């Protein structure tokens, strides 16, 4: 049963590619800006239109599209289930809002001319990774994402951002190569590259375990799991604001999404409980270490970047919680729903936060936390955005971050793994410390000479961040639809999910 909208699935990659080519050829700031906004709106409309066919197609487990009409083992398929759909939806929403912000952010023609083609190529890579159903195709998607991100980080042209970009490039390359080695081992073992076929064939033999460990190391490098996080703060802290937002909100999540696919679906039999506990321990270390480093940061952008390291740690708690939960049959179960909820809430809040910091940086020309006294009076909108996003990151009600943490705590308690509860509560407390440290300074009244050094930020730059922060709060009011969407998964029928 293929509805007409299913045939639009390749457009998820086609629209960004077309936009990238057009932006490179047009090379005029105003026209490319209008064109990009139109493309972003079109992309969001397309994803929303795919929601309904996905709901109707629950028996098939998701939407499949055979590119070139060849079918899975010979050709390449696109596959979208509930899990992929959530990421596609978050991507489309964020791309639209961040594109609006970028139109105002990149005022100079020269930078805009380089930004838009790379931006759209990155979006193509993200959508490709979320719809991939072929393990080599995933590798190509990772290359697209990795190289486009590196080029975007280097966009600033300053020495610091070039050093960060180079380090990011080398780390990304190492991660991709480790992943590729894993793919080679899997092809040798199973003789196919199709996700569906490997999922049904996979066993817990030595080679599958070796492949899983290689792939996990590669993807963990790209997800910046402690202790492989060293590249993230300079890269995310040195990039232009919309780029930092997309890197923290989506790029690191793409590799995390692939980790979920490998551990819970593609190579589920090879995923031993011990290694899953180890991933959880690394995640817990990331929470504590990220919070400590965020507290010690001197620049606001570095603080926000370290906060990403900490928040990514929560996501990895998914693995020990799922390992213990033997009743889990679909992606709609508590632990996975909690992690996905966390992912969405963090994507919205963190991108709002990076936009707010970008505005502060534009207004003052620096983001040294010590010198940011009294900004509440001069930049109320940006600080308000920062505060709401911060509240969601800490996990206070009524935000999306609160529901996400609540669900994670529930999953931990129902699986009788109380030690994760302690880590999560401590992490929330420590996040509160570094967020309130900034807010506290912001409300100190300032002398007059400091106030004069503040430039005006256009409304087009202030509003997108606020919208994202408000969305992060709204997420807390409407938890049901996301969990409903998650439960549409092809893995439920085949029973390969642990």
């Amino acid at each position, binding site marked *: 049963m293929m509805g007409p909208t299913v*045939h639009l699935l*390749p457009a998820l*990659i*086609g629209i960004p*590619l*077309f936009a*990238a*080519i057009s932006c*490179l*050829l047009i*090379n005029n700031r105003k026209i490319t800006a209008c064109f990009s906004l139109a493309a972003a709106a079109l992309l969001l409309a397309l994803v929303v239109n795919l929601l309904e066919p996905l709901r109707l197609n629950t028996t098939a487990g998701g939407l499949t*599209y055979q*590119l*070139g*009409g*060849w079918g899975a*083992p*010979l*050709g*390449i398929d696109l596959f979208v289930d509930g899990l992929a759909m959530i990421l596609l939806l978050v991507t489309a929403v964020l791309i639209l809002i961040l594109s609006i912000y970028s139109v105002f952010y990149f005022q100079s023609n*020269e930078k805009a001319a*380089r930004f838009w*083609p*790379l931006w759209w*190529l990155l979006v*193509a*890579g993200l959508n*490709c990774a979320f719809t991939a159903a072929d393990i*080599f*195709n995933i590798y*190509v*998607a990772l*290359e*697209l994402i990795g*190289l*486009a991100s*590196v*080029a975007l980080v*280097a*966009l600033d042209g300053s*020495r610091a951002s*070039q*050093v960060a*970009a*180079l380090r990011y*490039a080398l780390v990304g390359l190492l991660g991709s190569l480790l992943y590729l*080695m894993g793919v080679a*081992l899997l*092809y*040798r*073992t*199973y*003789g*196919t*590259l199709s996700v569906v076929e490997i999922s049904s064939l996979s066993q817990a*033999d*030595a*080679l599958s*375990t*070796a492949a899983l460990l290689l792939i996990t190391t590669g993807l963990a490098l790209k997800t910046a799991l402690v202790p492989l996080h060293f590249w993230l703060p300079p890269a995310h802290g040195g990039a232009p604001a919309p780029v930092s937002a997309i890197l923290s909100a989506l790029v690191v999540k793409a590799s995390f999404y692939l980790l979920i696919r490998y551990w819970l679906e593609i190579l589920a039999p090879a995923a031993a409980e011990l290694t899953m506990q180890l991933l959880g321990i690394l995640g817990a270390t990331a929470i504590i270490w990220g919070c400590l480093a965020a507290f010690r940061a001197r620049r606001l952008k570095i603080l926000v970047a370290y906060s990403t390291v900490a928040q990514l740690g929560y996501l990895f708690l998914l693995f020990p919680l799922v390992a213990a939960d033997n009743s889990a049959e679909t992606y709609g179960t508590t632990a996975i729903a909690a992690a996905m909820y966390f992912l969405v809430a963090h994507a919205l809040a963190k991108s709002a936060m990076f936009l707010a910091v970008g505005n502060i940086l534009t207004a003052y020309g620096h983001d040294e936390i010590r010198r940011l006294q009294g900004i509440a009076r001069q930049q109320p909108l940006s600080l308000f955005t920062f505060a709401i996003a911060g509240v969601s990151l800490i996990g206070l009600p009524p935000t999306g971050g609160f529901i996400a943490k609540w669900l994670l705590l529930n999953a931990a308690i129902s699986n009788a793994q109380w030690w994760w509860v302690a880590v999560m509560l401590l992490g929330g407390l420590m996040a509160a410390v570094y967020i309130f440290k900034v807010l506290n300074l912001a409300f100190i009244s300032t002398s007059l000479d400091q106030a004069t050094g503040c430039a005006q930020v256009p409304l087009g730059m202030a509003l997108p961040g606020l919208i994202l922060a408000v969305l992060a709060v709204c997420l807390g009011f409407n938890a049901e639809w996301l969990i409903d969407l998650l439960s549409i998964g092809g893995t439920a029928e085949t029973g390969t999910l642990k």
Partner: protein
Amino acid sequence: MFDRLVLHETSGTKPALKSSTKIACGLASFALSGGLIAALLLSERAGPGLAALTASRMDESGVENPVTAVLLNFRSYDTLLEIAVLLIVAVAMLSMQPSATNRSMVEVNHRHSGDPVLAGLLRWLVALATVLSGYLLWTGAYAPGGAFQAGSVIAGACVALKLSGRYHFFWHPLKARLLLTIGLAVFVLVGGFCATGDKRVLEYPLEYAGMLILIIELAATVSIAAILLLLFTGLQDDKPDATQAGRPST
């Protein structure tokens, strides 16, 4: 893009790695390869993989070379994305180029006489490389060859032209940007227009498959050659001293 960082600033300084770090890295690599070899020895290879399936459907692909069939028909989506990866490299390099949109793409320095022997050799070499590239592209349909090989031969010929010092390439004019994007643009357009009626994206009609693959490869050859040349000029122009050294004589 980073060569100033890597080649200039770190040249002459010794890498500050302690010998203990080196030993640790060596041991880790040794353990990793040992583990992988053990895992490979312990497991069985699974059948012939996809080779048999590919062979059985070669007659539907429109070409005779299985590598070309896989790259441009069965798994054409991967190749399309790889060309997009090349475009990222091009855009990243483009931002390092002097942005003069009003200059023409190729500028000939008439005052620069150069080496007469080199000029004479290039006159033959460039023509020969162009013919060779066309042959490589055409032969891809039934023997090893294709867009990547053909593109790199053309790029090599252009590098020789650039090194002669008579020709300079600028990448911001529309013409140059067209050359850089045409590979991806043609691939996306052909793939999209295939989806008419009950056909799917990238599903070439059988009777035109060979022709469409040739068109895609031709466009890809142009873009690959342009991007490789852009990489070379970008790296060379970045270093004023190297530009001088690269010229045979003035």
